[in-house]
């Protein structure tokens, strides 16, 4: 549900209120239900202080909640996690001439997270009620940004942002013996922080710049650099039947993620801009990423920091694209080669992941190809095709069984050393527009589409279960068959 209300108070003042609510759920198997919902409300006031000076003020409130519901008899449960984001933002936009835009502003964000709250959902359920400690934080930032079109062919953008973050109570924080890997057994002390009390702070600069040089109206080069810091971390278990994600706020043990990115792009148009081509390369350097210890327990872990490890990462790639805008056959073909790698190096040999070497992150899908095209068949018939291909994401497969203590166990030695099968899918549609003339008032459109035309069972995940003396592998596919659909649209003037 989406609602928007805008009111022009007078010539220079405008107020807009918007609200948004969404709900989604999905049952992967008969016994687990995943649900998400988002509530968003925002208020914006803008006032033109002079013809070239605009002031805007924003208030935003967002609630995001997700839940996992176990439906198996006797162990029915629901684990819910929420993020609340409240933000106040003020900004001044000064544009004395069309070719110059100067922006200054600031914002403050209050975060409030419940990383996990587990409850039984029926009277007969044996599941215990457990709630993890909520997390609170405040982020304050100020920024200045300037965009100048030095000439019609040369545009420079410079920006600088400073952000300061504070993790706040109410919270109980554990101290660990620094000579040992963090674990429940190496806790030395517990400190209680009162509501609103500062637990940990981080702050730093985030510069950004980009330069676009046009050689003529057909050739251009764009170079950019920016740095970002992120105080929220996505914690994601990709080894189970379905990826389970939740967020964590930076704290004494988890510093903010830092990423520096440089990119260069070349753009060239041919044949009177009918063909657009581009080649772009990027390199990202990540610091203070979050990785997981071997055997880490992610969901509903009250000592999550003891199962997290700091990692560094790098990502690089080249994206090529060609697009045809004119003629009976139009379309776009893009190909990206990119890598995303992480490395964990800690002081303790027992915590090392893959010997401290760089290894593929869960986002590492080197080859990506997308094609979308339309063919005008005449008499308002259009044939559309859409094809996507990407390398399967990295996964950790078993590399052996072994006997220990009269049981057999499955061994997983190297993280992300394997990949699930590649993803590819072809969609085809045929559409008919019943208009005879462009200005026709009553008409309809028909669209017959086949999603996943050749019914490929693209794996969503591959997971393993142990039994007595062995291990079985299962593949979960979502939309694993062709899905035809027919859409009819009726238009009136």
């Amino acid at each position, binding site marked *: 549900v989406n609602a928007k209300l805008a009111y022009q108070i007078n010539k220079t003042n405008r107020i807009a209120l918007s609200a948004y609510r969404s709900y989604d759920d999905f049952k992967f198997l008969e016994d687990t239900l995943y649900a998400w919902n988002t509530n968003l409300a925002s208020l914006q006031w803008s006032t033109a202080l002079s013809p070239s000076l605009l002031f805007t003020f924003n208030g935003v409130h967002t609630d995001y909640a997700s839940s996992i519901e176990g439906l198996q008899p006797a162990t029915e449960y629901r684990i819910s996690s929420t993020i609340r984001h409240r933000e106040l933002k003020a900004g001044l936009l000064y544009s004395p001439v069309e070719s110059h835009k100067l922006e200054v502003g600031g914002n403050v964000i209050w975060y409030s997270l419940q990383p996990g709250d587990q409850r039984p959902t029926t009277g007969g359920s044996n599941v215990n009620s457990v709630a993890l400690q909520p997390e609170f934080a405040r982020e304050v930032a100020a920024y200045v940004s300037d965009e100048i079109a030095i000439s019609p062919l040369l545009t420079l953008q410079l920006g600088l942002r400073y952000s300061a973050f504070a993790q706040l109570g109410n919270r109980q924080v554990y101290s660990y013996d620094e000579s040992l890997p963090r674990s429940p057994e190496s806790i030395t002390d517990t400190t209680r922080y009162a509501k609103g009390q500062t637990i940990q702070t981080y702050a730093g600069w985030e510069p950004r710049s980009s330069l676009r040089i046009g050689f003529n109206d057909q050739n251009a080069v764009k170079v950019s650099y920016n740095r970002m810091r992120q105080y929220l971390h996505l914690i994601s278990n990709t080894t189970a039947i379905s990826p389970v994600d939740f967020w964590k706020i930076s704290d004494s043990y988890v510093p903010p993620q830092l990423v520096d990115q440089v990119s260069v792009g070349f753009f060239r148009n041919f044949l009177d801009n009918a063909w657009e081509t581009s080649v772009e390369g990027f390199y990202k350097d990540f610091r203070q990423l979050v990785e997981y210890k071997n*055997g880490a327990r992610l969901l509903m872990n009250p000592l999550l920091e003891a199962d997290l490890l700091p990692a560094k990462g790098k990502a690089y790639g080249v994206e090529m694209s060609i697009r045809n805008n004119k003629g009976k056959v139009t379309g776009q073909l893009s190909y990206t080669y990119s890598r995303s790698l992480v490395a964990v190096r800690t002081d303790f040999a027992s915590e090392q992941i893959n010997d401290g070497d760089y290894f593929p992150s869960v986002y590492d899908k080197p080859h990506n190809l997308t094609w979308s095209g339309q063919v005008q068949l005449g008499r308002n018939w259009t044939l559309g095709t859409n094809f996507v291909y990407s390398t399967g994401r990295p996964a950790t497969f078993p590399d052996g069984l072994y006997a220990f203590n009269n049981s057999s166990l499955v061994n997983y030695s190297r993280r992300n050393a394997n990949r699930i099968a590649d993803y590819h899918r072809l969609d085809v549609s045929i559409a008919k527009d019943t208009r005879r003339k462009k200005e026709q008032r009553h008409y309809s459109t028909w669209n017959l589409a086949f999603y996943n035309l050749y019914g490929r069972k693209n794996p969503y995940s591959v997971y393993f279960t*142990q039994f007595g003396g062995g291990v079985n592998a299962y593949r979960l596919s979502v939309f694993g068959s062709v*899905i035809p659909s027919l859409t009819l649209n009726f238009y009136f003037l």
Partner: protein
Amino acid sequence: MRREASVLVLLLVLAGMVGCVDEVALPVSTQTPRLVVEGLITNQAPPYTVKLSYSGFVRGANSLLDSLGVENATVTISDDQGRQVELRPVRRGVYQTVDSTFRGMVGRSYSLSVALPDGRQFVSKPEQLLPVPNIERVYYQIEDKTAIGQAGYYFFLDTEDPGDSKNYYRWSAYGYSQRPSTGVCCTLNIPCTRCFDFCWTRVDYPGANVLSDELINGNQITKRYVLFTPLFTYGPHLVEVSQYSLTRQAYQFWQLYEEQRTRTGSILDPLPAPVEGNVLSRQDGAEAALGYFGASAVVTVRLKTNSNELDFNYVRQFDLIYRREGDCRLVWPGAEWDLTKAAGW
């Protein structure tokens, strides 16, 4: 202004809208086989056993050791006083001490060295043999009037945790319960006397039962569950419970072991991990063997239950379900007829 007045979406086929799970051929990661070490020295009388094997894809826990057991390794245990003893192979992958004067002592540290036939050498970090308090009592609850398959004895123990030290515990337990069969005639008179109409079948605690005294330091450990023995017929159950001291590292190893052993592919599972312990490569300190070489003080308690506490008439009905035709030694594989003499009960 053009307005879209009505949209009708018709899905012709709904199949495939939900997730579908297929069993697939096991995709296998091609890593080199890992050495697996399972060894323990205690303050009880020798011999001490060390099992060596490799990881690999062979089905069945017993056959794993038979087919992947390490032969021709040189295995030694040494203590912090400089004493060293060699272990001899007793069967494939199983090595035992032969020097009966080499006995684990509380307070000493022990370490294992393994030289593999391919030249690789592994050594364990020294493990201190810590004291263990006595088991105060082992007791049980009978659940005889419950669903078939769940009826049996639940065994528990009480012990007192010393307050002056950090302590970590592991309990292992096994028991015997009787399993009925029709037996065979063992006399010539009619009707004949039937023999071998019940045998003792063994049940082991299936995983690692460990505890840290973090939350109960210096207090009683009460009603710690140690074993379940199923009830197949009327008769006593025999149980042996051992309480081991652990070092912190050993406790963490066993916890990791238990978490990995019980992974099911669910979203609540911990991430997969190699269950590495304290045995490292001598050549490459970053390479660890799977498994652990531990040193523990052990106290053991045996208990025989009193059959009179069972509801005779009710429990005898179980015979109808569990009794099989024939000699119990044959129909219940692994079962023993004369346990009292054979195993010293």
